[in-house]
């Protein structure tokens, strides 16, 4: 562990007292966590318990009601948005069905670019890594739901981001594909990455922190 920490740059993803609401309901309140290189946080809880909401807040896609998310590292300039260090894999795959897999992946590779301190792997290697090498010339729409999900995961590999935010990454996948994902996540963590994931299935990570989301933290303070 110490060996890893000396190898990778010092970095931390910190969330302080986050709370968010949907409509009048507070979904969660006073969520704080602190993840450093190699750290993982797994959100569990039933549907609608606010897992996705919390992930979207961390990814900067939702404005929290209170609190903030910050990113520290020795390579990043101060005042940077935490979201820029993150990969976000949501429920939807962010891939165009009209384009081929290779076109999709190379677009994201070019558009996302590499975050300081790492390099993404090539498209062919990424497709191999998710176990679907050799079909990158096919339109994305021809793939099955499970294959689409795997290719969406390959998107995380082609551009380097230290933080992975994964929302139900293993949905629509069979057990063997889950194993592939778990291996990739473990490699990412071993390389000094950080991961936040919401999941129903256990991902089989040994030293992941777990945060249980309950949903409905009360009615938001009266605005009217």
């Amino acid at each position, binding site marked *: 562990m110490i060996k890893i920490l000396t190898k990778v740059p010092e970095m931390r993803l910190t969330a302080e007292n986050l709370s968010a609401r949907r409509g009048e309901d507070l979904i969660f309140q006073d969520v704080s966590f602190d993840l450093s290189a190699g750290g993982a946080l797994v959100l569990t809880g039933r549907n609608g318990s606010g897992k996705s909401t919390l992930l979207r807040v961390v990814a900067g*896609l939702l404005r929290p009601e209170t609190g903030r998310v910050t990113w520290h590292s020795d390579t990043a300039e101060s005042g940077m948005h935490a979201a820029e260090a993150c990969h976000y894999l949501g429920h939807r795959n962010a891939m165009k069905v009209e*384009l081929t897999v290779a076109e999709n992946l190379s677009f994201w590779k070019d558009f996302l*670019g590499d975050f300081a301190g790492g390099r993404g792997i090539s498209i062919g290697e990424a497709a191999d890594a998710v176990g679907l090498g050799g079909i990158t010339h096919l339109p994305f729409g021809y793939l099955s739901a499970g294959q689409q999900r795997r290719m969406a995961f390959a998107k995380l590999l082609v551009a380097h981001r230290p933080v992975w935010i994964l929302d139900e990454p293993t949905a629509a996948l069979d057990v063997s594909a889950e194993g592939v994902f778990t291996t990739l996540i473990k490699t990412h963590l071993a390389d000094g990455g950080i991961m936040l994931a919401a999941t129903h299935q256990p991902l089989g990570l040994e030293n992941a922190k777990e945060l249980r989301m309950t949903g409905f933290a009360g009615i938001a303070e009266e605005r009217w």
Partner: protein
Amino acid sequence: MTALLLRDFKLSVRAGGGALIGVLFFMTVVAVIPFGVGPDLNLLSRIGPAIVWIGALLSALLGLDRLFQTEREDGSLDLLLMQEQPLVLTVLVKCLAHWLGNALPLVVASPLLGLFMNMSEIAVGATMLTLLVGTPALTFIGAVGAAVAVTLPRGGLLVSILVLPLAIPVLIFGVSASYAAVEDPAPFMPPFLILVAITMFFAVIGPLGAALALRNTND
């Protein structure tokens, strides 16, 4: 950014993209007019530039509501919002790609329709030139409407309602410049330059407004 431009252009040209449908709609709208006003060639040549412009305006609006909606539906919008590069720039590039894929074919098709309308060569050229300069403004204005209506399931109609009032100046100056080219006393340059100015103005306001709206749809 080049990658985004290429991807969006590919998407609009591939099957299911809006480019071909836009041109077909344009031709249909213009072709319907003679049935309404009668086949009087003199009349048609007089109102020709206006008809071509209105047809182009309507067809340019046709595909605009999908500008951000497709990105939102497949989750790409989230990733576009998260990046380091300014969202305004991303929107601007998307507008340019949309213009290249959807509005430029209209400009290219306009001389043919001008001939149908019995317009003189100068009028055809002037209309094409004003369309070339004026249609980007329509795309930029439309981007604001598309961004505002991105969360609405049936946003298409609303986009047109919101966008058309703002597009009226473009139409006024586009048509008056086209007429000025053929009618003697009126000079061509002043309305044409105002049209250029409108386009440049909306090239700034449009992406800014659209980026602001996109940032505000999510939370």
